[in-house]
């Protein structure tokens, strides 16, 4: 069980790291060519609106004051106004976040469960044909170039066979006509399938390989021999004794590999026009919508740090051997 002191220490650490990132971003915006006003205030606005925004963000003040206002604005949730949407970026982000969460959690949880299950079996039958087939396929999944794989799925399953919609998250006609809730949920699930499949396949490979190697190292430990000597059945040894301990590093890897998954998630959202944070970030970057890009980036950084924090705490809680 994690001690309260340890939790506090980790929280402070994450807070400091986030502050460093926040500060780095502030200076990057000031160091890049062009003046900050043109980066944070939409040049298409009326002079009064511009003056108001400049004042709100303190862009006419000296640098250190700008920085303090920037930090204050971040914590009060004022991240600027998007050039493209003409709305505060925080409302846009809230709107997009749910779609990213839906796609991300479903694909990660599914891939982790299936990966742990298959990795366990592969390690148990180490060296067999089954193990070889699974390991090689996992390697291939892991190194697949995500946009290409996504485009292939879109082409074959979406375009050629017409099984799934080619993009978006819902059928507008269905939502305007006030269809029953269950049809609407099924509609979203139907749209979810292709991006979900893409991320699932990509993540599955790494979880399988990790579980396999973790399981192999656990299987060579003495307590497995003890369990055998006690006369426990193979199934009990595999599932109760070995797999439970072997799954621990896989759980930590969910946090550590989040950076990798976010890259993949952004690409997947972009190709399937899934209206999430990743697609929004790419859109903002392509269209020089700086306030929106900045907000998306900060949100991603915050999520990554929180996920790693949760994993650290979870790990300390799950593994009683760890004391801090």
């Amino acid at each position: 069980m994690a001690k309260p002191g340890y939790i506090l220490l980790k929280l402070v650490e994450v807070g400091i790291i986030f502050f460093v990132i926040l500060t780095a971003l502030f200076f990057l915006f000031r160091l890049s060519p062009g003046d900050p006003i043109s980066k944070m205030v939409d040049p298409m606005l009326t002079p009064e609106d511009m003056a108001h925004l400049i004042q709100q963000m303190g862009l006419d003040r000296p640098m250190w004051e700008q920085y303090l206002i920037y930090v204050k604005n971040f914590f009060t949730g004022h991240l600027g106004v998007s050039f493209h949407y003409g709305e505060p970026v925080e409302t846009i982000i809230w709107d997009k976040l749910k779609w990213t969460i839906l796609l991300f959690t479903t694909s990660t949880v599914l891939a982790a469960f299936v990966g742990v299950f298959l990795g366990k079996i592969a390690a148990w039958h180490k060296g067999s044909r089954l193990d070889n087939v699974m390991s090689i396929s996992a390697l291939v999944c892991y190194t697949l170039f995500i946009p290409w794989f996504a485009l292939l799925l879109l082409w074959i399953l979406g375009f050629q066979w017409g099984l799934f919609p080619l993009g978006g998250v819902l059928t507008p006609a269905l939502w305007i006509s006030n269809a029953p809730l269950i049809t609407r949920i099924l509609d979203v699930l139907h749209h979810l399938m292709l991006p979900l499949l893409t991320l699932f396949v990509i993540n599955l490979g790494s979880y399988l390989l990790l579980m396999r190697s973790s399981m192999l190292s656990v299987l060579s430990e003495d307590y497995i021999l003890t369990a055998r000597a006690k006369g426990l059945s193979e199934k009990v040894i595999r599932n109760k004794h070995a797999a439970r301990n072997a799954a621990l590093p896989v759980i930590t890897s969910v946090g550590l590999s989040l950076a990798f998954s976010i890259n993949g998630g952004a690409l997947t959202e972009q190709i399937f026009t899934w209206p999430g944070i990743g697609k929004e970030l790419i859109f903002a970057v392509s269209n020089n919508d700086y306030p929106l890009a900045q907000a998306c980036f900060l949100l991603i950084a915050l999520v990554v740090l929180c996920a790693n924090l949760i994993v650290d705490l979870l790990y300390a809680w799950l593994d009683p051997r760890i004391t801090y």
Partner: protein
Amino acid sequence: MLNKYFMLRFYKGWQIFIQNPLGKTGVIILGVFMVMAIASFFVPLIDPMYDPMTGIDPDIKLSTGPSLTHWLGTDNVGRDILAQLLEGAKVAFVVGLSAAFFSIVIGTLVGMIAGYAGGLLDASLMRLADIIMVLPSLVILLILASLFGQFNIWIIVFIIAIMRWPAVSRVIRSQTLSLKHRPFIEASRVAGASHVRIIFRHIMPNVLPLAFLYMTFRVTAAILVEAALSFLGFGDPSQVSWGMMLQWVWKSGHMFQAPYWLIPPGLCISLLTLAFYMLGRAMDEVLDPRLRKEGQSG
């Protein structure tokens, strides 16, 4: 004498490596891509229309399928896809190897200094490594590209290297920690060697093999990130790469009409990264006898 010993060791390592099915497959795939990269220098010499960037077939105005003059077909402005694919192989090697090399250099330096110095310097360098390690490199590159405009290929390589050193430095650091109190280091310290000399003359030769093992995995990551960036339209516009070819087929709306154009670039990216990854795993087994025994007994 020393050289002979090293040759023998290298030969033995190579024997184990090449007998490993992963290593063998990786080397074969890599060989094919190397031939492709070398061929890219000669193809534009055959006819200027085979230049991957500027060579336009005067008879072709649309994307056409495979033919005798264009083995893999052409893109929508009449450029030869095979020529672009060969050029892409060259670019992928340059990007992957140089980014990996730079990240190894940075990672090894930081790892050795952190491990050797210890204390506050060690702690702060490793915290920095932790922060960089969890940040998604593609997202960082996107933000930087939006602020600083289009990057040329070397800046992209350099940023990837900066994003990718932490994993290397962790391994090198722990290796340095175990070396630090060995008698030969203590002896050289007593003999009056400076810190710089100890790090570069005594520690570095012992950690370098490990650093180069990690290089193969860095290559994989670098190629994937560069391809993704080019795919999203933030690559070096003066340089054909596989990611950029995919972007062209996607943006020009040919992805459902031109499988001869859609399939090759992505297949090449996936195969090349797979080959480097296999190489890394096989090298792991050469350097770690424990893994090797597991693999062979099964």
